[in-house]
């Protein structure tokens, strides 16, 4: 090997190692620019056009800057399921003719990485759809603009505080700021196959004990190996699902002052032991996040019950249409009290945006009840504003769920839901919990040991 080759190879090693840092953030998002005249450049979703308010152009207030701006909106809802439909954007642009919207599609999976890269380089969007679980990290790093300041505490002329229930409002707040405005919410209910429960003569479970009994009653061993392989309850080893059981058992994730882990207390241990028991007796199917969403396991009937949020209504309808009429939702069974994690999607304005006033107009517009209805009718999620939750679209019987009105149970669950703590170490805590839940649920550690290990990691992260 020549003396020239050696440094070349070492340099190649350096390139490959350092290159690992940024390669995933180089893809361009798909862009859909809607012209100021209102004509969509690209057809996207089939909008519920009638639901979109199309008022005449607003007469700008004296203080409003009407210099033409192009607003970049990063949207992870999906091209065909975004509530920012071409019709709705056209209506927005008709009302605010000096604002042109450049809506860009990004995948949820890679969104936060691209967002962080863009924000770090000062090239971020003006409006971004953000998963509420990302908010603690972003807010604690001062990445997000304060909407309280932008709107003077008002949204569409009314106090922001009056337009949300207590849970969402708290989730939107960091310190004394509103760092995001919730567009849809995520809280977990029980999804179950009504036909199977009925055939087994089992009532809809309301408590953990009833859930265990129902899971056992409907689980089947179809291949004769002595283990249930069909119609099982999906046990998910992640903080979202664990925290639901924890909250239902009267526990909390952190101490009241957010300085110490609290999830390894007796409430957390027995919550995890309950999940372990479901896996151990075969009525529960361990389904990790790496296994992906549940519809494949629902389609082949490995799963007949699970807890999850409103977006699963859409996943069921699109992923398992042949099971229409068989599914229902109910308040998730609990031990001591109802409870769920609270998440969803927030509309945020990066602090680096140079068009914050226009961005706030966009957010206000899309949080009006008419546009919020699109969150349900087009995106298949639950709108977060109180007015939208009382709208006619959400109170209609749903044929997929046998004529049930699923929103009722979600709304009830929303009242008892709690968002994840807003601490800068949250991502480390979340990771530590998830990793140690695995150990407990695959039988490699006791519930106490797994949660103690996670708590030690969480405490170390909080102490930094």
């Amino acid at each position, binding site marked *: 090997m020549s003396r020239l080759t050696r440094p070349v190879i070492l340099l190649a090693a350096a390139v490959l190692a*350092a290159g690992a840092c940024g390669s995933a953030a180089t893809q361009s998002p798909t862009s859909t620019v809607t012209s100021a005249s209102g004509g969509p450049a690209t057809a996207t979703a089939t909008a519920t056009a009638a639901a979109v308010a199309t008022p005449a152009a607003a007469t700008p207030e004296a203080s409003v800057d009407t210099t033409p701006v192009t607003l970049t909106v990063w949207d992870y809802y999906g091209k065909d399921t975004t509530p920012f439909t071409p019709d709705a954007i056209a209506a927005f642009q008709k009302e605010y003719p000096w604002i042109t919207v450049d809506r860009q599609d990004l995948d949820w999976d890679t969104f936060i990485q691209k967002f962080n890269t863009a924000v770090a380089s000062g090239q971020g969007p003006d409006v971004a759809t953000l998963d509420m679980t990302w908010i603690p990290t972003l807010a604690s790093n001062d*990445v997000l603009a304060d909407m309280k300041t932008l709107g003077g505490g008002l949204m569409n002329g009314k106090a922001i505080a009056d337009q949300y229930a207590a849970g969402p409002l708290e989730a939107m707040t960091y310190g004394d700021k509103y760092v995001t405005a919730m567009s849809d919410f995520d809280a977990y209910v029980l999804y179950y196959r009504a036909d199977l429960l009925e055939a087994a003569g089992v009532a809809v479970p309301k408590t953990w004990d009833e859930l265990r009994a129902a899971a056992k009653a409907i689980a089947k061993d179809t291949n004769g190996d002595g283990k249930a392989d069909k119609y099982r309850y999906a046990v998910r080893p992640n903080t979202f699902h664990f925290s639901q059981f924890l909250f239902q058992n009267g526990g909390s994730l952190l101490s009241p002052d957010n300085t110490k882990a609290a999830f390894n207390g007796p409430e957390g241990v027995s919550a995890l032991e309950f999940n372990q028991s479901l896996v151990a007796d075969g009525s529960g199917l361990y389904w990790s996040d790496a296994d992906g969403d549940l519809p494949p396991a629902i389609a082949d009937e490995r799963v007949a019950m699970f807890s999850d949020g409103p977006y699963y209504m859409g996943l069921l309808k699109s992923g398992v249409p042949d099971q229409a009429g068989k599914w229902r939702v109910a308040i998730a069974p609990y031990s001591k009290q109802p409870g769920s994690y609270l998440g969803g999607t927030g509309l945020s304005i990066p602090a680096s945006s140079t068009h914050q006033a226009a961005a706030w107009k966009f957010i206000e517009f899309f949080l009006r009840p008419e546009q919020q209805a699109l969150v349900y009718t087009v995106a298949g999620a639950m709108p977060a504003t109180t007015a939208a939750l009382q709208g006619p679209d959400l109170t209609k019987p749903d044929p997929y769920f046998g004529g049930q009105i699923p929103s009722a149970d979600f709304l009830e669950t929303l009242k008892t839901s709690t968002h994840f703590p807003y601490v800068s170490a949250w991502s480390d805590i979340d990771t530590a919990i998830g*990793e140690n839940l695995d150990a407990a649920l695959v039988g490699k550690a006791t519930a106490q040991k797994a949660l103690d290990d996670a708590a030690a990691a969480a405490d170390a992260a909080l102490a930094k």
Partner: protein
Amino acid sequence: MARTVAKRFRAGVPGYVLVAPAVLVTVVFLVIPMIQTGYWSLTVYNGVKAPQFVGLQNYIDLLTDPRFLRIIQNTVFFVVMGMAIGPVLGLASAVLLNQSVRLRALFRTTFFLPTMVSLVAVATVWKMLYQDQGMINQVLAAFGLSGTDWLNDPTTALPAVVVTSIWQGFGFETVVFLAALQSIPREFYDAARVDGAGAWAQFRHVTLPGLRYTIVFIYVVGIIGSFQVFDQVFVMTQGRPGISTRTMVYELVEQFQNLRLGTASAIAYILLIILAVMSYIQIRLGEGD
């Protein structure tokens, strides 16, 4: 003296002009980012607030964290297993294909095919094979054996990812070894046979020395690639269960996602140092007689 230097420079101008674009690209896209990453690794930096210099604290925190040491251990396991099996399989299949066997072109294409398929696609398919009720367990069951939930069992998840990577990569090694084998002069084998060398002696004293630089190439490239394993882990396990399949680059990406650019940069430099040392050792070994 000055005139000589000026004359030399003028004579070299066309050359400087020709290399200027490459130098510019290298400086802008390689040297500057590396220097910047090196600086960030000495700071607490979230990409928004100004970096706060903390010296070697990020490195100390990482290298004293049992979790990160386990992540290094996982990565080393992946590299050692992959490099112990993959190139050997590649060499063995290349030696076999170097004989006059029927359908050699078909075998060669078949072996190389997985290399041309996207690693994400390969990982997705293997993930389905490994499922509790996947094909692997169904085949085992047909023979009366019971499988496991390969990717959800901490003891089998990482080896399962390694197997996928070997399957995907050994076709490349086969083709490279095959090309190298065909460049070894036949006379060397004839001479060895005249000297009474059997098949093993020919392999040991003719084939292996003839492949020395190819072996160094395969191992340098393979080890660099293996240390940077990410795609398979992301698709198949997301580093789970527990941290049993979490690798250094996976951790780096996650730290970056969590806006810990200082820690992510420190991981990148730890990886760089490991790779530089490994590459240096391999090259020195390749130089020895």
